[in-house]
């Protein structure tokens, strides 16, 4: 290089001499025009950011008509003078101007134009560009998510999509997020409010969505209004989540490796009292109740001293382990002229707060796309996901995915003594030992889930008619879930205690406490497997053409079928012969210890899908679509549903009259859409219109040998008329860009009306008939709201770039049609009100002194039939019982169930929003993202309110500031006072919060080091998720969680990302 530069300087010596000569005359040699005289041939290669050559790039000498295009390998050659500006342009990439210097060789790297309105947006059964969109769609590209070590895709995209509410409610390893679109709710009705998931154009499920790894996903798009979702009409009433996985690109091979190592800790564990603190609470309660000081149950000074000196922590703390979070993802892509490929593999492992709690996931994907002929492209996309959840077993967890009952009890107990003493699990103080359970003492449950899918996609351009395409997609999907459940009899040891100290364990073993919670199955091994086999076939014809210069028309028609077969099998054997071999064969061989069961199911759907679009001069757009769906869920006469939509868009900035007057607006589009969508996820069975009998259940025991007989139970009464739930949606939106397109924004208003919701009518059928009226399609819920998305991107100097984004969604729902019992009084009515209002008492406060108490008693105030007590909460008397107070507005002096009312407007947040701030300075990048919810309320969970005044339990530390004769201004009512834990305004809090969801600080290692190891780019990064609450109205628990299960985690991780 150095030599070359030297050589060109030699050439320029005469010019320099001339220039120096002129300095004295002009004093400004730099703008001397003499250089223009040198014309030369400039040649080089044009590549994209990944190094792939870009064919077909326009190269123009600015100010002239001289131009050329790059060839297939990205090479170009053009004649230009020194000082000329060469402009490189290509659709979807940022135009680039380069001044011609003395060098005749010029290699150009072009960047994708990410802020462009020409960004490709995936919509159902096709793509469009953002500029031409007429419906309400939001997209998140996963590029900026790749470094977040999330175990599920939903967790990674939380908060990044306006109008899409994604909340993670617990922190168990592998836990996923709940996703709802535009406040979708079914209120009291039976239907689902889950959006539809579509992955690579194949209708999938939430489980498959969650199983994806960020590295294999290109983007996630959410179709929010009926116009975009109607092509999925059948089940699109709650929105559609579309996922597109990465595809290969022709050109240089790119290999990317991301690896992170991290750890987690709970965001907010409700803090509990120590045993010593709790002993104080208990003693105060005894003092109040007049328990004599010499009562044997009282704590001795020796005991108190001992408890003060020994703080074991709750069982949850005693059994806590350091969790680990690892993720490795490798992708490779590339291709030649006719074939391109993408391959990825990823592995995530997360361990939890307890030793027997872990999750791991392995994903592979391979996608090859080949141009078999000029007009025929075939691609094959194969993938597998495998995940394994390993959890300790405890019967009362049941199907409780967040271990809520276990966790809250483990967090509330244990502070009174060690969980392990002399190497044995201790049974003293509590009837259970969570430390033992968390170590797998009662057994273990391992669940594996494996998806294998293949998508073959064929696209054919019909050569004899321009714009006509044919296509077919076939997907085969096999999902298998296995479960191994080992159950053991748990034995804990009761130790003797010191005669003068009930809490000091001696070495004497008094007894063994045996827990066999599952009865005869407490010592058993169970293996189960469930398999779903499905295919989806789609055949389509499409046409797109421009007539003249102004009229562009596109149309498509699809036929789609889907069938699924399910099988499941289950076996259990009791009596494990050895704990070391957990296999069915190593169990009690007796016939009466062996059990098995199995079954199957089949489903099908057929659909016709079509669309018609027209645009005029690329400024006025009209799109319409329909879907005609048949579902086996409904009887033949009710089977088919028709779901049409229409949408319009107008780019105002394409109109001369507008741009001539308003020049600071670079882009302005208004759009409107209307359509209907449906939902067939209704009814409790797969065939709700057929009278069925269920056999296989256990009958009574008969016979001398006491065998269980068979039973046949009549199924639910069929509903011959069950049909689709429907939603009609109206959407009005606008998109604009200001300030030289640095600021872009979108606004949407929507009004969704759900009808034919499936629910029970208030039509009575006498009990004496023995019949029960099943639900019917009749109900209605309205949901209205708006969304906004804004981004501002700019740079300060050449080294500092920034990008600020804000998105917000608001949705308000109400019952429009709902049968209500005649006995319901006005204050109880639901119609016209929100679906998630909160019912409870109105707390007036704490009865703080005798005078206040006397006055209340004197007024005849009774609570649950008893006199109020000092230190207790008291409630507002709103009304009497229905017989005496039909209108529900006459207080009766008695506090009972009649005095409850709706005290909270919503338990689900109507507002969710996200704030993004990305900074880029030289080699450093900082990405921060915050997610917020607002407008809803939460009760403090029951465990924060528990008041167990016995040894073995702890309380939330807020009870340390409870009312007592010595602390009359305490914040909480007297510990143990009656009715103080009722659901009331006292415990109801605004749950608004804004959480710093993710921070990622990255550094690009300088090229000279990178090139030494043969890499193209090496980025090291530090990542933190859920780091802290920027703002939260609730401190006592994490408002995003249930407040009882394993709390959501903070994650700290370090990682490296290498591109070769």
């Amino acid at each position: 290089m150095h030599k070359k530069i030297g050589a060109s300087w030699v050439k320029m010596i005469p010019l320099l001499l001339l220039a120096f000569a002129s300095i004295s005359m002009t004093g400004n040699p730099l703008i001397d025009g003499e250089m223009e005289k040198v014309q030369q041939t400039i040649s080089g290669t044009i590549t994209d950011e990944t190094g792939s050559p870009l064919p077909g790039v326009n190269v123009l000498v600015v100010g002239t008509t001289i131009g050329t295009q790059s060839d297939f390998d990205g090479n170009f050659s053009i004649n230009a003078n020194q000082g000329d500006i060469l402009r490189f342009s290509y659709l979807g990439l940022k135009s680039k101007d380069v001044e011609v210097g003395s060098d005749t060789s010029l290699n150009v790297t072009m960047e994708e134009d990410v802020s462009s309105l020409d960004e490709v947006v995936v919509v159902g059964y096709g793509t469009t560009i953002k500029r031409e969109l007429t419906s309400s769609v939001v997209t998140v590209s996963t590029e900026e998510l790749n470094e977040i070590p999330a175990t599920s895709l939903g967790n990674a995209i939380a908060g990044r999509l306006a109008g899409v509410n994604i909340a993670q409610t617990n922190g168990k390893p592998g836990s996923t997020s709940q996703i709802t679109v535009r406040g979708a709710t079914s209120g009291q009705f039976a239907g689902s409010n889950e959006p539809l998931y579509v992955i690579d154009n194949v209708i999938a499920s939430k489980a498959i969505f969650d199983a994806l790894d960020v590295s294999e996903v290109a983007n996630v798009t959410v179709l929010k209004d009926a116009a975009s979702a109607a092509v999925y009409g059948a089940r699109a009433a709650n929105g559609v989540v579309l996922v597109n996985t990465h595809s290969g690109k022709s050109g240089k091979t790119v290999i990317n490796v991301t690896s992170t190592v991290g750890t987690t800790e709970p965001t907010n564990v409700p803090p509990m009292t120590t045993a010593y603190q709790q002993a104080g609470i208990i003693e105060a309660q005894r003092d109040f109740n007049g328990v004599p000081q010499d009562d044997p149950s009282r704590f001795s000074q020796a005991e108190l001293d001992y408890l003060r000196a020994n703080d074991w922590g709750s069982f949850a703390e005693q059994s806590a382990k350091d969790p680990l979070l690892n993720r490795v993802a490798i992708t490779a892509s590339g291709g030649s002229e006719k074939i391109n490929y993408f391959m990825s593999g990823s592995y995530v492992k997360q361990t939890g707060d307890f030793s027997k709690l872990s999750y791991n996931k392995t994903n592979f994907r391979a996608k090859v796309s080949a141009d078999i002929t000029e007009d025929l492209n075939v691609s094959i996309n194969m993938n597998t996901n495998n995940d394994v959840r390993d959890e300790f077993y405890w019967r009362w967890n049941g199907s409780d995915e967040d271990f809520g009952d276990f966790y809250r009890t483990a967090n509330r107990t244990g502070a009174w003594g060690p969980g392990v003493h002399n190497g044995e699990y201790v049974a003293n103080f509590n009837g259970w030992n969570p430390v033992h359970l968390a170590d797998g003492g009662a057994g273990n449950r391992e669940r594996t889930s494996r998806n294998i899918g293949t998508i073959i996609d064929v696209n054919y351009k019909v050569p004899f008619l321009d714009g006509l395409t044919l296509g077919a997609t076939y997907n085969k999907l096999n999902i298998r879930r296995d479960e191994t459940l080992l159950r053991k009899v748990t034995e804990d040891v009761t130790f003797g205690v010191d005669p003068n100290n009930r809490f000091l364990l001696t070495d004497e073993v008094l007894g063994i406490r045996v827990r066999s919670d599952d009865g005869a199955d407490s010592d058993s091994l169970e293996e189960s497997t469930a398999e779903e086999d499905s295919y989806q076939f789609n055949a389509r014809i499409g046409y797109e053409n421009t007539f003249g210069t102004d009229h562009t028309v596109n149309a498509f028609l699809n036929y789609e079928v889907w069938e699924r077969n399910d099988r499941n099998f289950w076996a259990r054997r009791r009596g494990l012969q050895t704990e070391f071999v957990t296999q069915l064969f190593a169990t009690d061989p007796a016939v009466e210890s062996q059990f098995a069961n199995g079954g199957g199911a089949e489903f099908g759907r057929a659909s016709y899908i079509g669309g018609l679009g027209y645009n005029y001069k690329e400024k006025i757009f009209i799109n319409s679509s329909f879907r005609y769906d048949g579902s086996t869920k409904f009887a033949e006469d009710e089977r088919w549903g028709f779901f049409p939509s229409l949408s319009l868009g107008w780019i105002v900035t394409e109109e001369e009259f507008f741009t001539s007057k308003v020049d600071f607006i670079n882009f302005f589009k208004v759009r409107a859409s209307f359509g209907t969508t449906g939902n067939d996820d209704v009814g409790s069975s797969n065939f709700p219109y057929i009278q069925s009998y269920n056999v296989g259940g256990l009958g009574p025991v008969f016979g001398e040998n006491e065998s269980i007989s068979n039973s046949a139970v009549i199924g639910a009464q069929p509903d011959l008329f069950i049909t689709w739930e429907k939603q009609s949606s109206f959407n009005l939106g606008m998109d604009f860009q200001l300030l030289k397109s640095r600021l872009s924004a979108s606004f949407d208003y929507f009004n969704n009306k759900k009808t034919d919701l499936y629910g029970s009518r208030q039509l009575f059928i006498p009990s004496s008939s023995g019949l029960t009226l099943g639900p019917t399609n009749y109900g209605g819920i309205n949901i209205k709201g708006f969304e906004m998305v804004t981004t501002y991107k700019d740079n300060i100097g050449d080294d500092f770039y920034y990008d600020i984004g804000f998105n917000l969604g608001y949705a308000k729902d109400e019952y429009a049609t709902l049968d209500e019992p005649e006995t319901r009084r006005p204050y109880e009515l639901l119609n016209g009100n929100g679906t998630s209002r909160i019912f409870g008492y109105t707390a007036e406060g704490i009865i703080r002194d005798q005078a206040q108490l006397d006055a209340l008693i004197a007024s005849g105030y009774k609570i649950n039939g008893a006199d109020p007590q000092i230190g207790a909460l008291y409630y507002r008397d709103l009304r009497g019982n229905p017989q005496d107070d039909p209108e529900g507005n006459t207080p009766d002096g008695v506090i009972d169930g009649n005095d409850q009312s709706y005290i909270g407007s919503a338990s689900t947040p109507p507002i969710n929003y996200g704030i993004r701030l990305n900074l880029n300075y030289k080699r450093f990048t900082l990405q921060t993202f915050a997610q917020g919810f607002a407008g809803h309320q939460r009760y403090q969970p029951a465990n924060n309110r528990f008041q167990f005044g016995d040894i073995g339990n702890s309380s939330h530390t807020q009870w340390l500031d409870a009312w007592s004769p010595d602390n009359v201004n305490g914040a909480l009512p007297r510990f143990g006072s009656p009715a103080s834990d009722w659901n009331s305004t006292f415990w109801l809090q605004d749950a608004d919060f804004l959480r710093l969801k993710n921070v990622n600080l990255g550094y690009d290692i300088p090229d000279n080091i990178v090139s030494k190891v043969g890499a193209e780019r090496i980025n090291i990064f530090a990542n933190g998720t859920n780091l802290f609450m920027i703002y939260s109205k609730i401190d006592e628990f994490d408002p995003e969680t249930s407040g009882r299960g394993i709390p959501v985690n903070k994650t700290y991780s370090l990682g490296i990302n290498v591109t070769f």
Partner: protein
Amino acid sequence: MKAKNISKIWILCSLLFLQCSEDVLDKKDLGAISSDVIWNDPHLAEGFLNNVYLRALPGWDVNASRMTDDAQGPDALMYGEASPGSQTRYSGSYNAIKDINLLLRDVGTGSISLEDQDLMKAQALFFRAYLYFKLVSTYGGVPLVLEVKDQTDVTALQVPRNKTSECMAQILLDLDAAILDLPDSYDSSGYGRITKGAAMAFKGRVLLHYASEQFDPAQDKGRWQAAYDANSAARIYLESIGKGLHPDYAGLWFDEGAGNVEAIMVRNYSLDRPHNREAGCRPFITGTNGESFDKPTKQLVDAFPMKDGKAIDDPTSAYTYDPTTLWLDRDPRFEATIAWNGSVWPLNNPAPNRTSDLEWTFQQSAIEAGANDRITATSFNCRKAVDGTLEGGAASLSSPTDWIEIRFAEVLLNLAEAANEIDNSGVAYEVLTQIRSRAGIEAGGDNLYGLQAGMSQDQLRDAIMLERRLELVFEGKRSADLRRRRMYGTLIGMHRYGYEILKTAAFDALSPTAEILDDRKVLEAGVLDGSIDLNDPAVYNTYFSTRLRSLERFGSVDADGDAINYLDNYYFYDIPQDDLNKNPNLTQTNGWPGGSFDPLQ
């Protein structure tokens, strides 16, 4: 490949798939079967009948004794605080009745043999009678629905209540029809199904109830005669097929199967379909749960006579009752029913909780800290029908002991009661002496087993009711008797009592260590080798001090708490408002808000 060919293939493919689109939606419910299959397969039809058994056949009722003076258990009803619609039997019973009606209608629509049909119908009819009788006992007359109706015509379903007498007539009609077709017994695989004998005995029970004051405060002798006839027929029939009293009063519960001559109507349990009564009856100190099932009161303890059949305060008794060693020289049924502090009760519970066959109910007798509230509040445990050979220790101990809903002893006592009411005291004496003889009470010189000779009708009625209470104790019959004969009035104002037993300093001194358990073990060793005689009141009181304690709500050793206050309108309960709402023609029972239906008609 040429483009033209490819497009041809594509078109062919799509035509093929369009062709099979009809099949795509032609799916079956693989998880269930249809009605025509059910009624063509006798095994499945029997499964449908089995499901009726599952819902209607009574089992161990661990809560019935709470509603009597026999056991501890505060209950809102006992204090006259029944909440509206407290009895929720209404709609559930009709669900089962609908299935019975469905079976009666459809069992003949398929290819099931007539013989099988008749047998299934007879069992179904029995249960229809059984369910209606439960309804009528609870509410008085209820709508008689005897066929399955179409749900679309709601007004046709809004049927009013039938008179109690009409319901009773239908119940007897169904029972008579069932008796006609039911067999004497089933083969060994059918043991536990309803037999002719069960239906006849149940008919006797129904008529006994109908003759009693609950249904007939005016006391019509005709009804008692009918009750006598039915029970007499049942007795004669049952004896003719070899039924009678089991020789072992305590052990009859564990003699399972057709060989048990006393079991007339049975519900089988097995370890795979167990009940949890055992877990709730076994003493907490043995390491089992010790929930408060059937904890005997002082009143029950005092009700048992002495070994010669005479009451504890009867001066003519040959035995002297001592309130400390109250277990000595009692009716042998006492020991078969009640476990006291220091009694010998072999239970298969593991060490270390279990240290000997001796039972303890004093405070702090359990190993577990803070467990006094789980030690029986009365100081007594129920040992009736508790199978000590089952391995205990687990909190959720499961028990396979069969429930005998009708024992031959009940048939006899029903007969005795009806006989007394129609002035046939001879049969009453005959039954009572037979029962007492089997119990092991001494016959006495007059062979009357402690019964007073020549009792008046009223005295004899009291004696019969006492005998029912003791013989059938903790079998759920006492609460039915109290309602049937309107005897709750005699309990009003009563407080149920038990004992609180504390260990003494002498107990603590038994072992030099500070462990209560060590003291207990020394005491047990002494009792078992005879060096400590707890049957000596002085010795017993050395180690234990005993105080009376009220078992009622807010009761304690210091306070009596709330008294029993069973209200008159509880003899026929209110129909739940929810069910009234669903049927405008349904009227509420007299004595309840808005009530206009007279259950005595």
